[in-house]
């Protein structure tokens, strides 16, 4: 922090509303010359919205802009498009690579900023026909790469490079811009191996020494502690704290990041050790894009509500999807002491498991079909229920279906115009209840529930959770609840497993300390 103290970026009192929903509340962020400033927060804490504001992304302006002001190098600026940001000297290294695989490293680095020279045709027909100056472009690319101390051939094709190298090419592209003052890294280490990540961190330090300021967004707390000068913690759109490295510890950051004060719903304590293990998962791997499960072992007891938490993209969603056979998976899963076949949704449903998908509209519902058909369709397919025998063949039994649907509508309080209304006309909460009814029609022994309250308003959230608790307590149904909302997990689960990088980091009591949850989510090993 013994920099000269000249401020590069000042974001003052930034607030942002999306359709009446405040996602950022009075954020103050200042970055000084040569400073590495870390930003940490859970998913949905507001990190990306803040960066979208800094880059003048159209999502911000098309939804009514933001409140507050931005100063860059001491002067107030208006950033209304990414081009403005680039012109000011703000660069961004994206989480997903913005590279053209078929082009060489040099071409990617110099894309749209090519060095050209005149030729005969361009003099007549305009600058669009100027020749590319390959030699000086190559030299520029090499210079940028050598700043990173990377030994990458500047003429190699992107397509064949290892993932880590692509990340460095992306950084080199930003470095090659002449006026670069501030560089934003959005979770740059997410795709890197450990040694690559270390290298990136040392690169960050070197860049900072040359006077470039860096905003470093990550959820890996030890990386933050390693390189950052100051750290800002966001939670639910609020700036919880800004601390310099010497003043804080990993534990404190973890606690600040999670920090919900949750009232437990007064769930009864159950003695799990006496219960029989109903689902035994060993060595589960699931190839679900964006939610890969590397190796998961779990023992789920009969009659419990088991929570699965963790940050987005770490693989928590993949577990239920894998066991239900929706994505390619391997390993061994035993249900009720019998081996469960993997990659076979039909057999899994037959054995008495059911699944409420996190993708309610995409996987969970037939949007154009009526409420009643949505409720009964899987039960008809799997258990041959609701059919009327006509001798040679059997047809759907309309009256039986109607009766069952009406019963469900009443029991779960599904607000609809009637059993024949198309589900796409229902609100999110009621659609979720239709999904629950659909699962109940299958009479499952174990129910996987993924993100049951995503996109549902607060009142409906509580009702959905209450329904789950009721099913668990009255019908003795075992429930495995996967959710990004820790508060939700802690309010109804008996135990909570935290997943990071596709593995179980640890299993905690719902009333364990905030810091423990935070550390496990950040991929640090349990402090216990």
């Amino acid at each position, binding site marked *: 922090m013994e920099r000269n103290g000249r401020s590069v970026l000042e974001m003052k009192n930034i607030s942002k509303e999306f359709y009446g929903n405040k996602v950022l509340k009075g954020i103050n962020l200042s970055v000084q010359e040569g400073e590495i400033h870390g930003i940490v927060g859970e998913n949905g804490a507001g990190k990306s919205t803040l960066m979208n504001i800094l880059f003048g992304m159209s999502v911000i302006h098309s939804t009514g802009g933001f409140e507050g002001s931005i100063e860059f190098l001491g002067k107030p600026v208006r950033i209304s498009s990414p081009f403005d940001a680039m012109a000011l000297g703000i660069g961004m290294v994206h989480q997903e690579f913005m590279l053209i695989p078929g082009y060489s490293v040099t071409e990617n680095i110099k894309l749209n900023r090519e060095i050209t020279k005149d030729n005969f045709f361009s003099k007549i027909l305009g600058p669009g026909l100027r020749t590319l100056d390959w030699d000086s472009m190559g030299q520029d690319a090499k210079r940028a790469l050598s700043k990173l101390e990377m030994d990458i051939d500047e003429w190699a094709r992107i397509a064949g490079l290892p993932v880590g190298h692509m990340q460095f090419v992306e950084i080199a592209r930003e470095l090659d811009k002449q006026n670069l003052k501030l560089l934003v890294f959005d979770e740059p280490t997410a795709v890197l191996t450990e040694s690559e990540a270390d290298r990136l961190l040392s690169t960050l330090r070197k860049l900072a020494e040359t006077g470039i300021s860096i905003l470093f967004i990550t959820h890996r707390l030890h990386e933050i502690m390693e390189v950052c000068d100051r750290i800002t913690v966001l939670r639910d759109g609020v700036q919880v704290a800004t601390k310099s490295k010497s003043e804080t510890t990993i534990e404190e950051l973890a606690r600040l990041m999670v920090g919900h004060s949750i009232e437990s719903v007064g769930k009864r304590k159950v003695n799990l050790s006496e219960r029989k293990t109903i689902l035994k998962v060993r060595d589960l791997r699931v190839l679900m894009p964006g939610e890969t499960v590397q190796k998961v072992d779990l023992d789920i007891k009969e009659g419990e509500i088991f929570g699965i938490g963790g940050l987005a993209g770490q693989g928590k969603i993949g577990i239920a999807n894998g066991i239900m056979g929706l994505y390619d998976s391997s390993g061994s899963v035993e249900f009720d002491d019998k081996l469960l076949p993997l990659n076979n949704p039909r057999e899994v*449903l037959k054995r008495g498991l059911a699944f409420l998908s996190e993708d309610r509209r995409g996987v969970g519902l037939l949007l154009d079909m009526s409420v009643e058909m949505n409720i009964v369709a*899987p039960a008809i397919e799997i258990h041959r229920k609701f059919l009327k025998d006509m001798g040679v063949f059997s047809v759907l039994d309309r009256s039986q279906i109607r009766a069952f649907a009406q019963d469900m509508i009443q029991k779960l309080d599904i607000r609809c115009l009637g059993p024949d209304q198309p589900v796409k006309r229902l609100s999110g909460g009621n659609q979720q209840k239709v999904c629950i009814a659909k699962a109940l029609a299958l009479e499952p022994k174990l129910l996987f529930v993924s993100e049951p309250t995503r996109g549902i308003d607060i009142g409906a959230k509580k009702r959905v959770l209450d329904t789950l608790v009721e099913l668990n307590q009255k019908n003795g149904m075992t429930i495995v609840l996967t959710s990004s909302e820790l508060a939700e997990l802690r309010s109804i689960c008996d135990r909570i497993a935290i997943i990071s990088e596709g593995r179980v980091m640890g299993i905690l009591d719902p009333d364990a300390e905030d810091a423990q949850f935070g550390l496990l989510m950040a991929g640090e090993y349990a402090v216990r």
Partner: protein
Amino acid sequence: MQYDNKKSQTTTMLEQILKKIRSFGIPRIIIILFLLSLWISAAFLSIPFPALLSDTFVRLGMNTVLTLSMLPSILVGTSLFFGLPLGIICGLLGGVMSIELNLKGLTAFFAAIGFSIPLAILVGYGYGLLLNRVKGSEMTVGTYVGFAFVSLMSFGWVTLPFKNPEMAWAIGKGIRVTVSLEGRFSNVLNKLWAFELYGIKIPTGALVFLGVMCLIMGLFLRTRTGLAMQECGMNPKFAKASGIDVDRMRILGTIISTILGAIGILTYAQGFGFLQLYEAPMYMGFIAAAAILIGGATLKTAKISHVIIGTFLFQGILVVALPVANTVATLGSLAEISRIIVSNGIILYALAQKGGNE
């Protein structure tokens, strides 16, 4: 005050009517208006109306099953069944076999269907396998497969060892381009229980036959398998999560469409009086597709009512367009040209509109 109330009432009523119209589908209304205007001009040109309506019913009986073959394909999610020529060729082969065996009348007709079904199952299965490999571009691939199969079968018709002199080329080998069904199963359905009402001839047998086909289809859609098929079309992910083998269902839907195509061409042929071989099946798929789209189907949803309404409208226009054009434009082939313009224009219009709203 009272006046205001009344006004708001009339506006809501107007809104309701507009909503009804919109849900019926504006393209369909335009087509209906077009048909009506053709009928009116036919009346002015003193073209006998009962004859027009008779023809329309005959064509409805001939074409509905072909249009129906679009339905399973749309419902299972493989979009319009442009592989229809495959089914048609299976049906033609069945018809040719029935003539070769020297069968006559209704026996010949149902025997032809019986022969063509196993062929259609085989061809449909293969075509279904292919469609599962080109998910997302079924219509394009289907069109070309249909064309290719028609061309391939042009060799087939020449080389197949059929001996019956009614069908063979005079020079010896191969089957003629058109095979007359006179004395075989020409008009067997049209003449069955046929009667006349105010000068309108009703081809009862053909209408009953298409009714039975639609009924079987309707019942099938209400079975467990039928429901599973529709789930695949509406949301393949939902279907997979419900334990349905989506690829198998798509093959099944394709097989049923192919079978209906085979039966469809035989009902068409009995009304037309000829089996048309070689290049004739090439464009049949477009006519059937246009008919179901005019009826109100979309590329993803369709009902049996769409099949019947659509076929009636499309064939009704074709029936009346020809004599009207004939009277208006007497010059040589101008009538034929205008008929082609009308029919292709409707196809284009239907494909561009893709039916009404839900």
